């Protein structure tokens, strides 16, 4: 197995993984999407909501906000408290907001969501959550200001993408077979038709066709069809993959990849011990 990084920062990664089969890379991809636990708002206690959004809409918007936690919490199902919610498996956030005193409106952002636990923080500060508007209404002969108010407590818990997409730590996560582009220089006349067809503009033609960045090829094979002499061939390697993944911001991409690998390892270990115990009987 060989690993080579192409891009790598806190939020996204792109690497070439060679010497493995597609089943392994696909298992890694599926584990990253569905089995790496992260924190998200799961239950919302709404005390007051006179805004234009329904309770459910607010709850959904809250759930989709990425949250960052300094320590990894326990999944409620595995917690000592039996899933009722304790310090180890739950963190709370509070939102208290009101429309302006005079006529007009304000936007409530994700930064207005106040964590009641110092371990947790909101990643994106400027996600518009709710729009609150104050109106003046005539009630009989009196002009009355009508204000909107939202007051709630959100409970965030650990979960996995298998349960709900809000617990999915990655956005884009996938792979492709490593492209290999072969140009037969004896046949190539340098007509440049392949270069015109290539949607990624990877082919430069001087005397003969040349490839600039083979790994960016999307395997569309338009160049193959364009070439009259059949001088260009696009092949995909079946033991080498270009893997790319992007985090939604709540966890670092390093954490997601290593955690996914650990989960796969643990499953295999469980399988082996199960096999051994069955064989011993």
């Amino acid at each position: 197995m060989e690993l080579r990084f192409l891009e790598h920062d806190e939020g996204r990664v792109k690497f070439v993984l060679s010497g493995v089969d597609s089943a392994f890379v696909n298992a890694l991809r599926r584990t990253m999407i569905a089995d790496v636990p992260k924190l998200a708002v799961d239950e919302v206690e709404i005390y007051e909501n006179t805004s234009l959004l329904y309770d459910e809409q607010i709850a959904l918007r809250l759930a989709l906000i990425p949250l960052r936690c300094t320590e990894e919490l326990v999944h409620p199902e595995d917690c000592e408290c039996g899933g009722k919610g304790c310090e180890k498996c739950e963190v709370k956030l509070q939102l208290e907001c009101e429309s302006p005193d005079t006529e007009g409106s304000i936007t409530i952002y994700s930064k207005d969501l106040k964590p009641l636990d110092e371990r947790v923080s909101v990643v994106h500060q400027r996600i518009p959550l709710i729009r609150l508007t104050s109106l003046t209404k005539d009630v009989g002969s009196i002009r009355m200001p009508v204000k909107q108010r939202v007051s709630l407590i959100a409970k965030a818990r650990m979960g996995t993408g298998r349960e709900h997409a809000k617990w999915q730590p990655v956005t884009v996560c996938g792979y492709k077979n490593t492209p290999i582009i072969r140009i037969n220089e004896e046949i190539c006349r340098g007509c440049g038709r392949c270069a015109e067809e290539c949607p990624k503009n990877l082919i430069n033609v001087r005397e003969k066709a040349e490839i600039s960045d083979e790994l960016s090829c999307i395997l569309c094979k338009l160049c193959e069809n364009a070439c009259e002499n059949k001088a260009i061939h696009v092949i995909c390697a079946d033991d080498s993959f270009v893997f790319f993944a992007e985090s939604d911001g709540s966890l670092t991409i390093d954490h997601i990849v290593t955690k996914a690998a650990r989960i796969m390892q643990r499953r295999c270990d469980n399988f082996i011990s199960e096999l051994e115990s069955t064989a011993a009987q």
Partner: protein
Amino acid sequence: MMIPVRCFTCGRVIADVWEEFRERIKTEEPKKVLDDLHIERYCCRRMLLSHAEIVEDIVPFG
């Protein structure tokens, strides 16, 4: 009604750049603004480009 928090297709958070996008497209090319804001994929780009903010319009009916 309000800008969706995430892209419907890939799940990237897009709502955090909405207000900046809305202000900047008044004077700049939307393409340039989206590139500046690092909205790369076309699924995320359409979220911002095709969004209509109507939350203010329904205030009288609320």
